[in-house]
């Protein structure tokens, strides 16, 4: 029979992204990828396509989605999130001329596969340094959304950063849910309760890697007059959190949007990225934001963070990726 070749006549260059759970509008990971696509549309004069997953779908759906996107002439086709790994493994060999990008995974490899990965642990390490410097109670908190290896990377880096800076500081950690229950990325009231628990125990800096649920943590910390550290994007500038921005000390950024843009650009330029493309502190792929004026005033803290940054880049400090 026929196959789903929507064959939209690929005269115009186009790129596509396929989202992970949450999809567009999650104000986090997926939105960042979308921002990269939009930027590429504007600056590179290409057409951007994006597709959402359905809840609880299987690999077969992802295979179908990627196939359809590749077949209709999109190049590159980017899978947002490690869940796309098995699908890309199946689809990439069938479209050798198309570049496939995958974020957060290096387990599938191929000539036409670009694995975009981030050293989240490095950014988190810096957050740990900042937290250790900012705390007055010698207690800081980490809140992870869902207990998966990726989020544990955040925890590991953070804890190491804290310990290396001030061994006396205690790190409280709490995960909100267990996979495949991804509520821990979506329910702010869980983040709030967890943060409240840590605040009650005396923590005065709370770092969350919990997506939207983290906004609850930020709220709790802010209402209590304590520090919150954001994640993924610079949450100080996030509209939904404007009310609490004064208490958002800093955020660990992860430049998914840049990574997406770079891949599209490389394809457009005829030199498609391939293999592992790692974004660490060195390339500003991850980092620590400094939009909060209060943060800018903490010179001691900034100095410590900058020192740590330099040492990580130079390789003097090796940051662990698992707690």
């Amino acid at each position, binding site marked *: 029979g026929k196959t789903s070749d929507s064959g939209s006549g690929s005269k115009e260059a186009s790129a596509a992204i396929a989202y992970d759970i*949450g*999809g*567009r*509008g*999650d*104000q986090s990971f997926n*939105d960042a990828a979308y921002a990269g696509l939009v930027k590429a549309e504007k600056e590179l004069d290409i057409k951007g396509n994006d597709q959402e997953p359905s809840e609880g779908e299987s690999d077969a759906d992802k295979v179908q989605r990627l196939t359809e996107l590749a077949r209709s002439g999109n190049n590159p086709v980017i899978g947002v999130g490690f869940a796309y790994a098995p699908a890309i493994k199946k689809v990439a060999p069938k479209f050798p001329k198309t570049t496939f990008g995958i974020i957060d995974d290096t387990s599938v490899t191929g000539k036409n596969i670009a694995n975009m990965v981030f050293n989240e642990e490095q950014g988190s390490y810096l957050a740990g340094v900042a937290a250790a410097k900012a705390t007055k109670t010698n207690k800081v908190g980490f809140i992870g959304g869902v*207990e998966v290896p990726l989020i544990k990377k955040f925890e590991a880096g953070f804890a190491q950063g804290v310990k290396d800076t001030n061994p006396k500081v205690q790190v*409280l950690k*709490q*995960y*909100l*849910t*267990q996979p495949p229950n991804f*509520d821990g990325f*979506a*329910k*702010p*009231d*869980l983040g*709030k*309760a*967890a943060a*409240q*628990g*840590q*605040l*009650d*125990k005396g923590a005065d800096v709370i770092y969350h890697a919990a997506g*939207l649920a983290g*906004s*609850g943590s930020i*709220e709790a910390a802010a209402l209590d007059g304590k520090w919150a550290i954001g994640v993924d994007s610079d949450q100080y500038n996030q*509209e*939904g*959190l*404007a*009310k609490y921005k004064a208490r958002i000390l800093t955020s660990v950024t992860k430049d998914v949007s840049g990574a997406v843009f770079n891949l599209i650009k490389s394809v457009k330029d005829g030199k498609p990225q391939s293999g592992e493309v790692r974004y660490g502190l060195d390339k500003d792929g991850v980092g620590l934001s400094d939009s909060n004026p209060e943060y800018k005033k903490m010179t001691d803290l900034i100095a410590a963070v900058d020192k740590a940054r330099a040492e990580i880049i130079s390789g003097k400090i090796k940051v662990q990726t698992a707690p």
Partner: protein
Amino acid sequence: MSTSTVSAVSAAPKKSARRKLSVPVILLIIAGALALVSLVRIISGADDLTSVGQVSGALQLAIPIGLAGLGGLWAERAGVVNIGLEGMMILGTWFGAYAGYQWGPWTGVALGIVGGALGGLLHAVITVTFGVNHIVSGVAINILAVGVTRYLSNFTFDKAAGGSSKQSPRIDEITKITIPGLSDWLRDIQGKHWFFVSDVAGVLGGLVTNLSLLTIVALLLIPATIWILWHTAFGLRLRSCGENPVAAESLGVNVYKYKYIAVVVSGGLAGLAGAFLAIVATGIYQEGQTGGRGYIGLAAMIFGNWMPGGMALGAGLFGFTDSLKLRGGAENVHAMLLLLAILLLLVVFWQLYKKKYLPAAISAVAAVLLFVWYSLTNEVPSQFVDAAPYITTLLVLALSAQRLRMPKADGMPYRKGQGK
């Protein structure tokens, strides 16, 4: 001798099956439970077990569940099973947030209730007027609510500043009250970690600290429900529709009307639960925010034997363990192992007293195992911590004798004029 009257003899009189717990007895039970928890707290050092924060967190987590459960109770007391609570709750979050961010939180609450009530109305039309299986209708409403809210978000929140297709802009807060002197005083006492006294202070403190006005409204709805359903003519009629609608009909009660009212109120309460989640607990609408709490509410209602007090207890238990796990679960839940071991020990004594030797032996072994687990470890793996609320509920249900009595005609189709 054929003239003897028989009327007095009839069936051997049985004792009333319903034992009424008097207020002092209830208080005594609560005090006993608290003392036990206090003991465990002292032994394990998990001071968070009855802290102000823990109790107030538990309250916040319990309220949406309790409101949903109350919604379920209204519907089922009138004989309509409402598994659509989840969907009505979703409608509540959406409508509540939609109105809330534009016109203020209280308007949000009102519209959230309306949203849920609309879901309830649909459920009533399908189940009462068309006589469709209640579960089917509920499941359909759950699907529909997800679809409708997500669809609508594309046209509303997506365009709003600070919102997206999955999330609303931030909603203003509802006033929170803290009784100034009292709250601090109680917090101080709790902070001293004395046996029992601190625990009482913690619990009371949790109930007077940072209390959203909507929380108070929600709490008041429980006695209000008891009063309406059990002490008014309206409530009697409503309940009769769930017990024996044909009998009610034969006495001139308009069964359809009461079922409609009950189901719409049920939806409204679920909607309020949703609005609470969006406006008080979170401050935004968030896709998937309800996360099955409607089902948990239903479970709490069954747990509570279709009675408001029991339902509140179920929701409270759930909120309590949920809060425990979120607030440093590894330690708190570890302490719960000890609590459980002690409770099981009490069960053993009870069973021995009742001469049930085999169950006693089983309970004893379980208690010992728990105790060994407790003493050999420092924390519980976070994966199991997550399961704590669910396991606790199951254990409580399994250990307490179950004499569930649901309304007799619950879930049964009813057609006017077709009673036997």
